[in-house]
């Protein structure tokens, strides 16, 4: 009886054994975009210059760090992009960055899909705010995954003066969407 109990517990003990963390880097083709709503129209801007890393820890923990240059977001309108750089003070605060942790699974097999909620800190316009971010991860192979996420951000919570057109300000809430391709480093 005792031997059976020990045998049943042995795999559990093995799962606690230390293993190496795995680090994935944000690969080309990744984008972060924003959607901003004004009473007269909606504006979308995308940025392909994203850098970041995600680390899968042996205990199932996940650490994420991603950042993008504020000045590299492109809405298809040069004037509007310049206006965005002005209100976000892109010269003083050149990056929008996100650090997050979560718990998922250390398994990264081809076809595996994970839904995670990351506990994150978003630093935008020099102001850090804590947010929860839902993330969908799909492993295309053991060393490559795509990550999709979208979440709202308040401009005023980050001290950004809402831009206006014809004296009407845009809505405070903007929607951030990320589609990141992750490739394992040394994978």
């Amino acid at each position, binding site marked *: 009886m005792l031997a059976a109990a020990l045998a049943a517990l042995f795999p559990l003990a093995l799962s606690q054994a230390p293993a190496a963390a795995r680090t994935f880097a944000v690969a080309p083709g990744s984008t972060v975009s924003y959607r901003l709503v004004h009473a007269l*129209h909606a504006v979308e801007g995308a940025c392909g210059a994203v850098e970041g890393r995600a680390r899968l820890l042996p205990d199932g923990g996940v650490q994420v760090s991603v950042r993008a240059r504020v000045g590299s977001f492109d809405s298809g*309108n*040069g004037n509007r992009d310049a206006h965005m750089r002005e209100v976000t003070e892109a010269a003083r605060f050149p990056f929008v960055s996100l*650090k997050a942790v979560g718990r998922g699974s250390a398994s990264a097999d081809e076809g595996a899909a994970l839904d995670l909620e990351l506990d994150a800190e978003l630093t935008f316009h020099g102001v850090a705010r804590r947010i929860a971010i839902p993330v969908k991860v799909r492993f295309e192979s053991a060393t490559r995954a795509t990550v999709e996420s979208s979440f709202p951000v308040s401009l005023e919570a980050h001290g950004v003066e809402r831009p206006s057109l014809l004296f009407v300000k845009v809505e405070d809430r903007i929607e951030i969407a990320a589609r990141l391709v992750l490739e394992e480093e040394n994978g």
Partner: protein
Amino acid sequence: MTGIVRPVLAAALLLALPAPAASQDEPRPPPDLDFELLPAASAPPVDLALEREVSRRRRMLTVHQGLGIATWTAMTATVVVGQLDFDDRFRGGGDTGKYHGWHKGLAYGTATLFATTAALALLSPEPYAKKSRFDTATAHKASMAVAAVGLAAQIALGVWARSLEGELSERDVAVAHQVIGYATLGAMTVGAVVLVF
């Protein structure tokens, strides 16, 4: 043997048991973000000259928007009163001249507003470089360039038509003035509307 097994079992069960759920009212503890996965980005030096330019640009373009709305309103009024003036003089209105002074005043007022509005945009600093390409902002500028040419032509044609007072060609020049007036208002409207796309 059982003396060793008991603590091992207890420890293993503790590991296997899920952690107690946090209370709904309890604030979440801050996440442990004490890790670095990216090289540190150095903070850029504060560029006060650039920030002053941004501030000046914002002020100038805010006034530009206000004067732009005023210019479009004044242009609309000029066209409406101009049509009344035309009807009064050439379409059986009795040639009383009662609208002419209003039309002339509105026309010069519109031209002044337009020039001031354009100057604010053209003279505003550009602290952040802009990609040059065709977008709604360039469509706005192109429409306003057409409107500027139209306004200049309007002033010339209006003065010319008046100088031909009593001659047969006065009406032809006045019709050209009328048509270009509507076209100018159209260009101005397109230039404003295009900004919301």
